[in-house]
């Protein structure tokens, strides 16, 4: 077994121990209720823990399968996220072809470029070429009704669901880490998620000042706790990256704070569209976009920072 593989297994083992503890905790809470009764808070908690099990198992298997596994996993996540976003986007019949192109041509090509390691093309393909091509395809149908809204919503969907998410597997081509670049992906996902969890928990305990009143229950105190927790986790996990503890903590903190603001942006979009969750596909957590919102914003920033720090 190579060192990278054993490190992946070590990380998963840590997370699985945590999940076993959470599952046992939930089962004990269930067991303490009288027979035939259920507590909705406990049930939601257990549903989330079960979804977490699925996510951890999938991510571990994909990571062990290597580059192909991760490309397919995140390619599917992009597909599911784009499907959720475009379901609520404003569209007309004239956009049918450009939407089909987004799903079946642009998304696979973006992941192909990531897989081939063509970093130059991967960085400009969606923001330049897709953005110019799709409005042309829509315009050719001759329907100008709310044209700018239609084009803007489709492009934003591609930007966050495909462009941003594809930065996670793109970390694989981070040269200085070599074969161990795969561990950077686990580092990113773990620090962002732990930051979110700490933000949620602390926000409910000691939160006072709302960051965006009327939009989200996020508080300044909760966010500070979350960023500190992410930084501490980053320092602890610095051995998975080519950086020292200081840089790792800084990277984790920046990724985490970007992610939290990303989640705020998604709250605003959902409010605008009048939906609570993007879909129902992950039990207890809503849709893929609900689950990924912070990682989506954190990924490109994390990607560019790792490259900047190294040079």
């Amino acid at each position, binding site marked *: 077994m190579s060192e990278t593989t054993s490190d992946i297994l070590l990380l998963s083992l840590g997370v699985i121990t945590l999940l076993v503890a959470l599952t046992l905790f939930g089962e004990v809470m269930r067991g303490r209720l009288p027979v035939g009764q259920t507590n909705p808070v406990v049930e939601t908690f257990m549903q989330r823990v079960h979804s977490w099990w699925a996510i951890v198992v999938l991510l571990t298997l994909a990571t062990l399968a290597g580059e192909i596994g991760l490309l397919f996993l995140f390619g599917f996540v992009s597909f*599911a996220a784009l*499907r959720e976003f*475009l*379901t609520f986007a*404003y569209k007309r019949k004239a956009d*049918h072809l450009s*939407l*089909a192109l987004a*799903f079946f041509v642009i998304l696979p090509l973006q992941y192909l470029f990531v897989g081939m390691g063509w970093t130059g093309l991967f960085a400009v393909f969606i923001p330049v070429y897709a953005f110019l091509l799709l409005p042309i395809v829509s315009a050719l149908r001759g329907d100008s009704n709310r044209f700018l809204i239609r084009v803007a919503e489709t492009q934003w969907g591609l930007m966050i669901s495909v462009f941003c998410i594809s930065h996670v597997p793109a970390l694989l081509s981070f040269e200085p880490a070599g074969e161990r670049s795969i561990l950077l992906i686990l580092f990113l996902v773990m620090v962002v998620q732990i930051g979110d969890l700490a933000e949620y928990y602390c926000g409910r305990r000691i939160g006072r000042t709302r960051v965006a009143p009327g939009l989200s229950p996020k508080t300044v105190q909760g966010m500070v706790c979350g960023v500190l927790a992410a930084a501490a986790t980053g320092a602890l996990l610095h051995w998975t990256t080519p950086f020292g503890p200081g840089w790792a903590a800084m990277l984790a903190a920046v990724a985490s704070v970007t992610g939290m603001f990303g989640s705020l942006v998604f709250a605003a979009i959902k409010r605008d569209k009048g939906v609570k969750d993007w*879909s129902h596909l992950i039990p207890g957590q809503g849709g893929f976009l609900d689950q990924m919102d912070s990682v989506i914003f954190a990924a490109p920033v994390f990607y560019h920072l790792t490259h900047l720090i190294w040079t």
Partner: protein
Amino acid sequence: MVRVAALPRLLAARIVGHALTFVARFVIAVRADWRGIEPVPRQRVYFANHVSNADMPILWSVLPSALRRRTRPVAAADYWLKTPLRTFAGRDVFRAVLIDRRPEARTEDPMERILEALDEGSSLIIFPEGNRNMTEDPLLPFRAGLYNMGRARPEVDLVPAWIANLNEVMPKGEVIPLPLICTVTFGAPLHVGPDENKDAFLSRASAALAALAPPRPDDIR
């Protein structure tokens, strides 16, 4: 009793049925929103809006499997008996109650077949508009069938089910379907009132179904 010769066909039908449900749930991501009722095994007639040929398979596959096994769509015999493949799908996979919708050619009353299926204990899926709705209106006027069923078997729940988004998945004239999320919203069950006449009931049923439709983007802005 099942004849031995029919077994492979039965098995094939079950496999195709599961495959269809899998595709519907993971590729088109259809979901059920049980707003007015719970998905419990009561005898019901689900009546839905009809914009696309995919409506019936979508509604059928969104039901929990225990309910799906006891639910039969009411469908047009001239469509489902046209080719051997369609006959297999209609008769064996969906176990449709096939009715002849051409009054001049038919030899038996479609309502008899429908009541027969209800008396066997099956739930039904029907599209009371009769045809696919190609207009801009949310619903076409309902045919009398729904009223006749409710009158003849008053204990059966008549459940409105709105299928949303399918017309965006594949608008008329397009070839490539878009993988958007479809939702089927189930409303509160209706029954024909003791002295309610046909037109009053049908417009009440139509309004109950239309009320389940999500607001159109044009209405919001």
